[in-house]
């Protein structure tokens, strides 16, 4: 399984760099740590593009000839996406903590990061299932459309806030910070439960479908 992990990791790492480096690089420029919240909003886009490009470069017909089962492949791919999202979440939390300290803003941004990561992981599972059921060509069309719309929305939201508040990245809604802390754990637990449920669905889809063979 390590060969599949190594091969797919390449896309997650390169896309992670692509999406996070510009955000990190602009922090000193703006002198506003709120930029980190933009990085949180990039998570679903980063994860979607990573899944898309790793699937486009995958050769399931070759894998089928090797002593590896669909179940093992699905678990490896899902494990990889989960591992990277947890890593990214941890990096975000670290950056937010360093930037804001123990302030109400910190709580808000942390909740925002958790929320986007939770949504992203379920989205990644959905993309995998979509790819295995309908093929990578269909996935390409849908994900590219989502990426373009996502970019436009993210930029528009930030631009609007930039004009209105003369700052960038002040994105964390107040209600996220004001809610009881337990809901973040529940949110993550629900996302993980959905993720593992979708993983079981993915195994069945992968075993039955010939869309990527």
């Amino acid at each position: 399984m390590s060969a599949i992990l190594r091969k797919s990791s390449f896309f997650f790492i390169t896309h992670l760099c692509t999406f996070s480096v510009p955000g990190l690089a602009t922090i000193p420029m703006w002198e506003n740590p709120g930029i980190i919240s933009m990085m949180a909003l990039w998570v679903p886009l980063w994860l979607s593009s990573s899944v898309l490009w790793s699937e486009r470069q995958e050769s399931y017909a070759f894998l089928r000839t090797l002593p590896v089962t669909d179940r093992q492949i699905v678990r490896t791919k899902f494990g990889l996406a989960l591992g990277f999202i947890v890593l990214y979440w941890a990096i975000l939390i670290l950056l937010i903590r360093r930037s804001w300290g123990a302030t109400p803003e910190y709580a808000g941004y942390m909740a925002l990061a958790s929320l986007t990561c939770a949504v992203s992981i379920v989205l990644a599972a959905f993309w995998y299932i979509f790819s295995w059921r309908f093929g990578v060509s269909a996935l390409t069309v849908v994900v590219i459309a989502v990426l373009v719309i996502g970019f436009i929305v993210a930029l528009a939201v930030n631009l609007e806030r930039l004009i209105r508040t003369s700052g960038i990245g002040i994105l964390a809604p107040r209600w996220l910070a004001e809610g009881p802390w337990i809901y973040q754990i529940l949110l993550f637990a629900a996302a993980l439960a959905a993720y593992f449920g979708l993983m079981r669905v993915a195994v069945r889809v992968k075993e039955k479908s010939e869309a990527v063979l």
Partner: protein
Amino acid sequence: MTPILEAQGLTKRYHDFTLKDISVEIPRGAVTAFFGPTGAGKTTLMKLLASQIPATSGEVRVFGLRYEERESEIKDRIGYVPQEPVYYRDRSVEFNARFAASFYKRWDGGAFYKMLDEFRISREKTVKRLSRGQKTLLSIALALSHGADLLILDEPTAGLDVILRRMILERLRAFAADGERTAVVSSHITDGLGDIAEYVHFLDEGRLTFRSEKDELQGRWKRIHFKDGALPPDLVGQLSDVRRQPFGSSGLVQDYSAIRERLGAGIASGDVKVENATLDDILIAMHQGD
């Protein structure tokens, strides 16, 4: 003897084609061939036997094990050569080999690279720059380099020149010569493969129409060459694929033993000659429904 591979009621339905209710038992230690015209379902059957696609219904057991329960274990002991091999096309031959090697328990890198040299395939070359024949050779090298007990090959000699084709067939013969290892090969042409196969199956329009030991098959099917008037008309009527030739005619008979006695006088006078029918003759006759 327990068959090395057996399929029961294997069916695969597509919107425009159905492979119907195939049941086969592949004996250990021999080359078994599946022949049939293009579109007969050979590739679908090979894919099903190697668990490359899911069956609509039916079951396959390899080494007595079911894919549903022991897929990794089974695939570790089989080598599958698809009709159109697929790899990581933007990566090198070496990358693909190392990738595959990481999954096998008994990978023999020395044997693999020796075969690559024999096939004149550069290990640095990216797969997308290989010809179709070279991809097949790469696939054969991979299949023969991890200690497989069973090879399943789909049209392995298609697109190869005559020298390479003979080399591959010799390797298959040698592979199964120890009486333990087995090769299952599909082809739409019998050329060469007919010589090394011990068991032959004919597929046509998604059905298994015939199976036999090759020697037994060629013992029954004969081509009769006869001078005009040397055979009674009713006997000529029983022949199929009757052709005019410079010194008379020839035709195929499906059950030679049934007419042998009636040919005695003609054979003695030299007006009738009997020879083994080629597998091509038999295949064509079966396809035409004679």
